[in-house]
Structure formats: C-alpha cells, structure tokens
C-alpha cells in the first residue's frame, strides 16, 4: 500500500502523474545545477544540434523533470538522481544509436519513488527502448525494476528464504510493484 502523500490518498493514475507543479525555467546556455556542486554549462559555440548537444538536452530535460519533484525528495536522493543521470548520460558512455530514457519512464520512476517512499535504490540504469532502470539491494536480496512510462514496470526479484534463493520476474502496474517491493524491503 502506498504511504500517505499530501493530499493523502491511495495512488491512482492522476496522482502518479501530477506532481505538485514547480515552475522551472532554464536558460538555453546556462543550465540548472549538476551533481556534486558542479554547474553544467552548455557551450555557446555549438552550431549544429549534434549528438553531444542532444544528449546534453536530454540530461537537462530529465534534471528539470526531477526538479519538479524536488519538494518530495530529500536532498540526498535528489543529488543521487542527478549524479546517476550524469554518470549515465554523458558522451563518454552513451551511444548515439541508443534510445534516450523517455521522460514518461523517468516520470513514472519519480512518481513511484515519491509515493512509495522506496528511495533507497542503489543505482539507476537505462534499458533498451528508454526504460528507466532502478535496483534495490535489500538484506535478503536484490530487486530490479524497469519503468516503461505507461504505468507499467517490469521487475525481477531474488530473495533468500532460509538460505535458498527464490527468484521471480513479472510485468505489472506501479501499484503492484509497490506491493511486491514493500514485502521485500520493509
């Protein structure tokens, strides 16, 4: 069950996709803050919208999306999200032909994180087709999730029960995933 969230209500589709509106604007050249105290600056001298520029725009777009949820995330979680986005979406690691993480998938991840309060994920990734991946490491096992952006999430879980590893994998709604993860992590 999702924990209360102002205004307290069980999660429904409208709740999940309607964070409290936060007006975020950014200059096309000077960009909102990066992780680790660094400020990202978009070079002025790029003439063509090349790969690196598009990558940079996606990174900024995702950070702006995260900023819309900032009042519901601790500063530590916010920094971890920014830091993971920086790690994943940079020209040193990203392939031009790969699908960028979709805003819808990232929004699902953020909404779900806020509502479920399971903010203790270990790492983020980007799946094929732009899914937003997250992994939780619990004392009893590992849970991975791929947020697809349509209120659906594909998950895998490996949980040790009396020394025997029990594995499961499925695809379901954000709500179903919350129930599952809650039972493993709480």
């Amino acid at each position, binding site marked *: 069950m999702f924990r209360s969230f102002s205004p307290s209500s069980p999660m429904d589709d409208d709740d999940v996709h309607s964070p409290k509106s936060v007006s975020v604007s950014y200059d096309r050249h000077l960009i909102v803050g990066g992780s680790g105290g660094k400020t990202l600056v978009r070079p002025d001298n790029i003439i063509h919208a090349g790969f690196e520029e598009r990558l940079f725009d996606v990174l900024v777009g995702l950070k702006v999306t995260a900023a819309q949820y900032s009042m519901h995330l601790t500063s530590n979680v916010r920094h971890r999200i920014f830091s993971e986005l920086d790690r*994943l979406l940079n020209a*040193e*690691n*990203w*392939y031009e032909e*790969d699908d960028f993480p979709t805003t819808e998938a990232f929004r699902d991840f953020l909404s779900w994180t806020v509502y479920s309060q399971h903010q203790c994920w*270990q*790492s*983020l*990734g*980007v*799946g*094929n*087709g732009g*899914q937003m*991946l997250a*992994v939780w*490491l619990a004392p009893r096992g*590992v849970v*991975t999730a*791929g947020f697809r952006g349509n209120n659906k999430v*594909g998950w*895998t879980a*490996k949980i040790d029960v009396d020394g025997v*590893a029990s*594995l*499961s*994998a*499925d*695809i379901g709604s954000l709500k179903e995933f919350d129930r599952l993860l809650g039972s493993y992590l709480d």
Partner: protein
Amino acid sequence: MARKPIPDEHHVMRFCRARLIYTDKTGKLCVWPDAFLLRPATKEKPEEDYLSSDYFEHFSGTAEQILEQCRSACKIVNIKNDDQLAQLNVGKMKEQGDKRKLNIKVLHQGTKSRPSYAGVYGLPSPTQESEALAVAQLIAEFAVNDVFLCKA
C-alpha cells in the same frame, strides 16, 4: 563457417553497455537482466533471434591475453569508457534454460572477420515479455562468471 556447440565448461563474452551495468554495495560490478534480452523488431531490423557474443576459449594465451583478444574481437566502434564484457558460463546458461523448459544452445559461428563469434540461441522472444525477463534474470544471476572492463 559451420555452427558448432560450445562445451558446457567453456565461456562466451557478452558486450554490455555502461548503461546496463551497476555496482552493488561491495563495489562488485553487476549486469542488469536487460543485457540478456533479445532486441525486438524495429522498422529497420527484424527481431533478434540470438544474443551476440564471442567464444572465450577460441583464443589462446594467458587469461589476460585472451581477454585482450576478446576486447579486440567484439568489433564495437568507439568503445566507451565504462562498457564491460560479461563472461558467461555456457553450462550454467543451459541449466537456467532447463529451469524454464527452454532448450538454450550456445553455438560457435565464427566468421572470417570475427572468428570467435558465438550466439546464444533458444531465448524467449521479446514479445513474451515476462518470460524473457525471467530468463534474463536467471542468466544475470547465475551464469555471469565475471565482468571485465571492455576498454583496457
């Protein structure tokens, strides 16, 4: 070149992009199950029917020399800094397939330009989403022997 089954005790190396790698609490590199999903059909390409990899024991030399040859073999243009090669045990992959009643085959199908080329066959189609994810999880969990940086 004819396709030949690779012995169970041998390994194949699967190229994994940095976005599909995470670090656990002990600092160990782990591979997301998504690295072992077949690519669905797109406008440009048909659905993938096997996972590409390279046959580790095709090469000879010390472990480090073999690894170096695997790095060159995977033919990725402009390899990125944090890309990894996951070493998969053939027997363990087949064992995981058996658990899901799948007949997983790992075949050496070297070509002139890539003599170590190998394929993992018998994985669920990407259209069977839950089943494909379950098998990918089993491979990630039980068949990955080690993970090596792709860029030496």
